[in-house]
């Protein structure tokens, strides 16, 4: 009984692991475009969060006006660049 259970467990594990190698189906290639789009969207969301945080820091008095202007300008420029990149990736093809 124990040996049968061990055999079942072993076969199940080997089948689980080996199936992608022996199934004959082409492996799911990473959708490079979709991944790039997702990464750009993630970067953009992080950038937008950073803009909000810089604004909060300024309003809460954690940033001087001069520092706020500089940081805000830099982060907004980065966000605009990321938006362009995201839009370009969207135009290249349908994303999953």
């Amino acid at each position, binding site marked *: 009984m124990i040996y049968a259970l061990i055999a079942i*467990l*072993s076969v199940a594990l080997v089948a*689980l692991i080996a199936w992608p190698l022996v199934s004959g189906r082409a492996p799911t290639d990473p959708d490079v475009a979709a991944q790039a789009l997702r990464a750009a969207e993630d970067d953009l969301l992080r950038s937008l969060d950073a803009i909000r945080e810089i604004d*909060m820091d300024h309003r809460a008095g954690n940033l001087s006006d001069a520092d*706020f202007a500089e940081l805000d300008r830099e982060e907004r420029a980065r966000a605009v660049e990321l938006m362009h990149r995201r839009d370009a990736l969207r135009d290249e093809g349908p994303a999953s």
Partner: protein
Amino acid sequence: MSLFGRAALLLAFAAALYAVCAALWSRRPGQQRFMVSAERAVYGVAGVTTVAVVTMWTALVTDQFNIADVAGYSSRSLGTNYKITALWGSQAGSLLLWAWLLSLAAALVVATNRRRNRELLPVVIAVLMGIAVFFTSVLSFITSPFATLSPVPLDGRGLNPLLQNVYMQSHPPLLYIGYVGLAVPFAFAIAALVTRRLDTAWITSVRRWTILSWMFLGVGIILGSRWAYEELGWGGYWAWDPVENAALMPWLVATAFLHSVMVQERRGMLKIWNMVLVTLTFTLALFGTFLTRSGILSSVHAFGESTLGPYFLGLIVVVLVGAFALLITRLPLLRSQSSLESYVSREAVFLYNNLLLVGLAFAVFWGTIFPVLSEAVRGDKITVGQGFFDQVAGPIGLALLFLTGVGPLIPWRKASGAELRRRFGVPVIVALIVVIPALMVSSDGGHWWAAAALVLAAFTLTAIAGEFWRGMKARHQLDGVSWPGAVGQLFVRNRRRYGGYIVHVGIVLVIVGIACQGAFSSQGDLALAKGQQGTVSGYTFVNEGGTRARDDHKMSVGAALGVYDGPDRIATLNPGVDVFLAQMQRSSEVAIDSTPFRDVYVVLVGLTPDGVARISVFINPMMMWIWVGGLIIALGALVAVWPSRRSRAPATIAPGADGAAQA
């Protein structure tokens, strides 16, 4: 059952080894199917390790005393809940728990990264499964939890009575979740180094893992302290025991890492330092596991003599040498994007905080390891006493408390004098108000450091309250919401920051509790015949009678004590002593009356046949705040990691400072 468990572990070892090879092979062009296979292998490792754990639990619950660990750590009379927790009572069982949690963490990493971090994931899998290979090989070939006995005993020896405590049921798993969780940021750091993707993406990917692991480790430490307080019966909760230190060290370095990543995210600085910290954190987690299992140090928490030390030491050396060699080859890619502009800036405060935390971790490491080094070099084992640790940790703890208050008040990059005066005004005034009462309560014992802790706590809590107030005001103005709504908006929009402030409140409370207990606790011994009364630190204790009982499991004696504060009866305490028959081991059942201001803690030392109760009484001020602080730390960490409802709808940017950047 033993054979089945061993087979499951061998399968886990084989699958983990395969996952390492397949994941690395998949990095070659056109070998993507091996990545799919490696991911399935990770799930497979989690599955068969779960089978091994369930097998062990089944053996424990059904009293399979042919398995050595069941016979050694369980018994027929043991309650089912303790049979379940007996899994981590043994050395091999605790390693099985480590391997199981690691396999589950790895499976969770794979499941949550199906569509992201695809370039990093092969190396992440290789690192996590490499660690799994180590643990499953130790469990398969060196110390198996499924080792058998012959002849089979009729009953087991039972679980150590000291471990039969609700806090000990949760303390080890929580610590292990913390240890194991810290492997994930380490794996991502190695993956970032290998793939040369050294931007902040890897840090943001592991932020939640790091905070949660840090939280579990911290809560595990607090619960372990609570266990020591209730179970060991010496009136204290922390003794700088090597194994306690082993859990504290990675927590300290992880705390440094949590702060320094913010500097990297905001200013592009400290990239190398963060790599060092994440490596040290994981190495110290392994070191903690090594300390409890090597037998090189004696501790109430350790597993005693074993042969596992060299294997763990080997793993630690491999991790350190491998990570630092890789780091050196990538140094040119890790240059800072900006430099420190002022020593009075938020990033500078984070740097000071890091130096103090790492310095404290090093001091604790040195004090912990010194007995071993002294024995190796001079032949004498020179024990480092509690005094050394207190002398080092006290001032550093105060400095950290100060920085906890200062950090939020200082802007990024640089601060002008006018800004500092404006931001520091109220916290400094509040701190000054607290100076006189703090000095008054601490003057009789000369405990200036306790007074300093109270003053700094007032400063820091005011600074945090000020941050909440300014944040609410900004949200009220920005969003036009009501004041209560503004509080909600703070947490909705910036959980990480305000969760962090809640954590800081918890830290302040813990430090206040530690300082007050350390400075102002008092102790007295009484021997009271029935009806007799005695006084300790203004509290009167009346012996109202003793009890004796015996069952199959243990012999118990107890005393009923009426406790009076002046004329008022404030509690009835029932301290006792149990002697567990299977082990002939004595265990104190401490009685505690807790209020927010003090604990009355009573230990029954003995009960004579003629009814005289000999008791030790400890009056521990502000103890409750250590446990409350721990809860608040956990709450703050959960707030910080709670997922935000970020929309994936097309993002737009509102007009900025100059009104120019719109999209």
